[in-house]
């Protein structure tokens, strides 16, 4: 089938402003949007620039705004996009565009690093593994799925409006340790998130949950962190 793909192109080496460009591509209904981008790059215009690696939704490289919604290009099939109409592809919002679909990921990773996303323990390490029941393990299972693709953070209207908010992903990253029975860093992490740019900025719009390609209930995780802050108990 012939599909029209409209891409927001921007190369600051060449132009001052981003502009839409439309490409015609022959695709199978079961092709991914990533296949469409590759066909354009490989057969029509080698300057088209985007990140990608694994091509099956686990590396988190190719989050982009497809038909107005944040998704992974490698996990979005053409047939699920109403391909009779033009498919639009643009970079994720709220991070500086470096070229075409490539944005500056550094602020995003900085927010993640700021929440102490690592196990904090004290005292002597046990000889064998730390014991954890499967039920305790299940409490944070959902947030361990995160692939740091930024689809959630860059779908959040609060994040768009000012770049100070940590964003949903950083809270997901903190949640994964706050609710881990082995961790002893909860107080510190909650203090970081209690900051004026922390969890309280969340307006519960659920954009993040809708955007997550891993199906993480992001808004629920944020609510659990808020509750932990109020009751100082996890």
């Amino acid at each position: 089938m012939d599909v029209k793909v409209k891409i927001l192109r921007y190369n600051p080496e060449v132009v001052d402003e981003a502009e839409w460009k439309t490409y015609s591509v022959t695709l199978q209904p079961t092709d991914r949007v990533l296949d469409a981008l590759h066909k354009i790059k490989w057969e029509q215009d080698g300057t088209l620039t985007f990140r990608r690696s694994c091509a099956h939704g686990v590396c988190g490289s190719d989050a982009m705004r497809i038909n107005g919604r944040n998704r992974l290009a490698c996990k979005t099939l053409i047939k699920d996009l109403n391909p009779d109409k033009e498919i639009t592809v643009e970079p994720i919002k709220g991070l500086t565009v470096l070229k075409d679909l490539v944005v500056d990921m550094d602020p995003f990773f900085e927010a993640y690093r700021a929440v102490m996303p690592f196990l904090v323990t004290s005292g002597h390490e046990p000889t064998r593994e730390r014991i954890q029941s499967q039920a305790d393990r299940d409490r944070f299972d959902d947030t361990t799925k995160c692939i740091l693709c930024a689809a959630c953070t860059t779908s959040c209207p609060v994040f768009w409006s000012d770049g100070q908010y940590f964003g949903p992903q950083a809270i997901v990253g903190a949640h994964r340790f706050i609710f881990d029975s082995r961790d002893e860093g909860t107080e510190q992490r909650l203090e970081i998130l209690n900051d004026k740019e922390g969890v309280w900025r969340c307006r519960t719009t659920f954009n993040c949950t809708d955007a997550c390609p891993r199906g993480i209930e992001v808004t629920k995780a944020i609510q659990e962190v808020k509750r932990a802050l109020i009751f100082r108990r996890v």
Partner: protein
Amino acid sequence: MQQHQYDVIIVGAGGAGMRAALESSKRTRTAVLTKLYPTRSHTGAAQGGMCAALANVEEDNWEWHTFDTVKGGDFLVDQDAAEVMCREAVDAVLDLEKMGLPFNRTAEGKIDQRFFGGHTRNHGEAVVRRSCFAADRTGHMILQTLYQQCIKQNVEFFNEYYVLDLLMTDGKASGVVAYELATGELHVFSAKSVIFASGGFGKVFRTTSNAHTLTGDGMGIVWRKGLPLEDMEFFQFHPTGLAGLGVLLSEAARGEGGILRNKDNERFMERYAPTVKDLAPRDMVARAMANEVREGRGCGPDGAYVMLDLTHLEPAHIDAKLPDITEFARTYLGVEPYTEQIPVFPTAHYAMGGIPTNIKGEALANNDDVIPGLYAAGEVACVSVHGANRLGTNSLLDINVFGRRAGIAAAEYAETATFEELPENPEAYVVELVEGLRNSTGEERIAAIRSDLQATMDLNAQVYRTEGSLKQALVDIEALKLRFANVAVQDKGKRFNTDLLEAVELGFLIDLAEVLVVSALERKESRGGHFREDYATRDDVNFMRHTMAYREVDADGNETIRLDYKPVVQTRYKPMERKY
């Protein structure tokens, strides 16, 4: 051009690179260079688990694990290295748990373990639960956990820095040259130790579980320096790739009870491996599947694949243990694994060969001598713990054990060594490479050449090989080299030039495909992942030895590949027929 100086440079930020960084950055100034972001590395795509004889759920010990690794590798494994890996496996898993890795748990709260292909109790008696796992995203959790520890330890990363050359001074490693993707700028890094941990080269094949970025850069760089590559003919084809796509469905699916079936709904693995059936090693299962298809028992309109059957498993069990791979089946093939069988076919998965190293992770210049300051770990390396066929889960183990060892060895060396003077114009080769491609006036499309390379490799150098097919592949590769000399890079810019990047990557792929095929042609036997229809049995008299390939350039600039051989280290186990 910018200049930097570090004690230790690590190329690649997957599991092996970050595990090495955790060691070397404790005691030396370390930088990790990656052409991606660390969490994008393909370690994250590994699914089923990491084996270690913890004996948490049943009797087990590391000696049995060593035996399985040696036998699984069709006795081409260096047994001293396998012993090290399997003995240190237990601590490697426990270390990850202490770093915070969320393993699935037993009823007592210990790390849970499950079955995996080729892992047995008491030297092949029956399958054993040895794989430690986090659902079917164990690699993802290892990658995340190691990255988190790197954050905690303030490891310095250079993200989206593409290393294109290794600098050598008087036979020692002295640094690397990297191309910064964001700006197109070149960076020269002077270092006492360089560790390659840059992964495999699965993209020489079309049907592959590998990421687009797995183009063998580290092996290619070393190769162009005239350093050897070992056992490159041994490439693993994973049995269960999603048919037509190659996306990996973990062996854990069979570990949890999944069954392979042909068009007659027969559990055909009973014929090929009566004891362990669907949990035979990957090379045997992949060949059995390809054989079912060749003999007309394949499924689908063209009979081109077989089926993976999970329908007899409880949906709740599937959701708890195999959530990701069942989602892949739903997303990409529209198949519901609760009720429908999943079309699968072998997919190019893992390079057993690579940069030869010893058990400390030191890279070898030949059969005996190490290259001072140069190290390799993970898929880019060949220790050799995988021999002719890697057992499932042993790659996640390899990156942790030998990543750690390489990190320690590189740091210890850097603590006593001094910085070597860099060669004159250290960036000259990379300038020529990059600018040559950027300014090329050729007309050949990168993607067309790559596609033709992958087509000939899939057709002629895959699960089944013959002298005729391999010679055809060589003829095709020769023609592709000529076309590559005329390749066009459309993007002439400096900023994020991924077009240029793909051209450089393609150059490495062509080099490595040729090494693979030349090595395969000369190995006139069948062993592990290398199966020659014209020499269908293993020949220990003539071929119980590692292949060592060298690139040689004569006075007129003509390149040839010279093959040499290295003995296999045998300690406890004598070669025996490989039956399961």
